[in-house]
């Protein structure tokens, strides 16, 4: 099997798993209890918090553990919106956000919070001029993702943070695709809130975190006990949090090497596919793009049919095509970038990672061209 869907999820690193295991059946104490079994669990949670904080160059007190990226996004948006509605109700985001942000915004819209969805250019970069123009005295929050999950485009987060600061508006970034892959320093970036998820960088599923800069007004998202200083109630997912901490530590140590190695593979795959398949488009920014992500649109064919044939060859990839979901709409990201719907339906995403080798790139670039050729032979739009 060749796995090239690391933006969807990653396998848990063996070293992460090893560190998690004792916290299921041996060190099972509830961190809120007072005996030493429980204190050991509490210490493990706090060590994980320090590791995550270190990865982000944050203070450990600014890290709140969540059940994952989606919860972190919902927490940030709803928590800031409700805590600051005395100041205003306007929220700014972009058209290419992950559904965790987009649908939280749609929810807030129904609750009376007006939302501006900023356009992007053909590379998927947010229109900064439109951003600045859309800020009003009522604006309380800007939420722009750090790197896009589908096409990999990296946003000018520092510039957006400066604009937000100038206008006294909080700035949240969904950094789920960035953290653990590329250096993310909350102080250098100047963000107020940041979401991350463990399973995108070789940690376990079901755990993530929200960074909240000290002093940011935010309401608790889940009410209950006093966990996470009352900001996120519920008994801590100790094994998961330990896993997130270990994954953060490993990422910090290994990401530089990994970036060099994987970028080479991704570039080679891109070069080979462009060379071998006529009429394909590479999506996303040519330079400011995640080093592991290759999104292409193959004209005249549809994404799911390509994925089905790749799956037969043991290759796991993904598509922004509508046919992989119940809706008939193709990827909102590609449409926002101005790609015509019929072309967007032919999108394929390869996202590479730790276990990909040169031979995988060779195999994919050998297998895909005949798949495309065969499907184009069936297509009414291909004049070959």
């Amino acid at each position, binding site marked *: 099997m060749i796995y090239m869907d690391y933006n969807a999820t990653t396998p848990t690193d063996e070293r992460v798993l090893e560190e998690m295991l004792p916290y299921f059946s041996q060190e099972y104490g509830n961190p809120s209890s007072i005996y030493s079994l429980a204190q050991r669990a509490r210490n493990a949670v706090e060590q994980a918090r320090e590791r995550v904080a270190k990865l982000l160059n944050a203070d450990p007190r600014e890290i709140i553990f969540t059940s994952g990226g989606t919860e972190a996004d919902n927490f940030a948006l709803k928590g800031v919106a409700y805590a600051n509605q005395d100041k205003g109700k306007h929220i700014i985001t972009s058209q290419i956000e992950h559904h965790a942000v987009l649908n939280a915004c749609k929810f807030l819209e129904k609750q009376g919070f007006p939302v501006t969805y900023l356009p992007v250019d053909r590379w998927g970069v947010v229109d900064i001029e439109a951003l600045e123009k859309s800020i009003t005295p009522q604006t309380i929050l800007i939420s722009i993702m750090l790197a896009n999950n589908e096409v990999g485009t990296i946003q000018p987060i520092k510039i957006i943070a400066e604009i937000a600061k100038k206008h006294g508006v909080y700035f949240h970034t969904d950094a789920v695709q960035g953290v653990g892959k590329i250096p993310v320093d909350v102080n250098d970036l100047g963000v107020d809130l940041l979401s991350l998820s463990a399973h995108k960088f070789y940690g376990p599923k079901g755990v993530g975190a929200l960074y909240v800069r000290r002093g940011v007004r935010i309401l608790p998202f889940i009410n209950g006990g006093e966990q996470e200083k009352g900001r996120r109630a519920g008994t801590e997912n100790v094994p998961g949090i330990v896993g997130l901490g270990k994954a953060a530590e490993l990422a910090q140590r290994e990401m530089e090497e990994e970036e060099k190695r994987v970028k080479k593979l991704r570039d080679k795959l891109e070069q080979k596919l462009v060379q071998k398949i006529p009429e394909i488009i590479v999506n996303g920014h040519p330079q400011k793009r995640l080093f592991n992500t290759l999104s292409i649109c193959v004209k005249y064919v549809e994404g799911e049919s390509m994925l089905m044939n790749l799956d037969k060859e043991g290759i796991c990839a993904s598509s922004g095509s509508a046919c992989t979901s119940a809706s008939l709409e193709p990827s909102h990201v590609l449409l926002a970038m101005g790609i015509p719907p019929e072309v967007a339906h032919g999108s394929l995403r390869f996202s590479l990672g730790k276990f990909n080798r040169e031979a995988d790139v060779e195999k994919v670039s050998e297998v895909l061209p005949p798949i495309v050729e065969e499907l184009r032979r069936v297509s009414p*739009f291909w004049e070959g």
Partner: protein
Amino acid sequence: MLEYTEKVLEHFRNPRNVGKIEDADGVGKVGNPMCGDVMVIYIKVKDEKIVDCKFQTFGCAAAIATSSMVTELVKGKDINEALNITNKTVADALDGLPAIKYHCSLLAEQGIRAAIEDYRKKKGSDD
């Protein structure tokens, strides 16, 4: 990945009757590239019987499989018989389709109807 039946996969991977009929008696084009499915069905008619049928489809695995199946089902049939083919006939012949792919079988039904309609219109204008 979606749960497709063996028959759907087989027709998707080895589609029957792919291509264009240059001197077709009827052509039916249905679907919309915006929605990711376009099906073109070509028929050749002799004495009110469909003697040949081909297709070209832009779409998912289910769209290609239903196109392939519908061409097999109508070949050799009288036009009136072919008009009795419904989306259910096509889906059943493929041992079923996932619920979200229902529209693909509908497209196959509409495609063959559109081709027959086109044939009748052309025939009418010849008389």
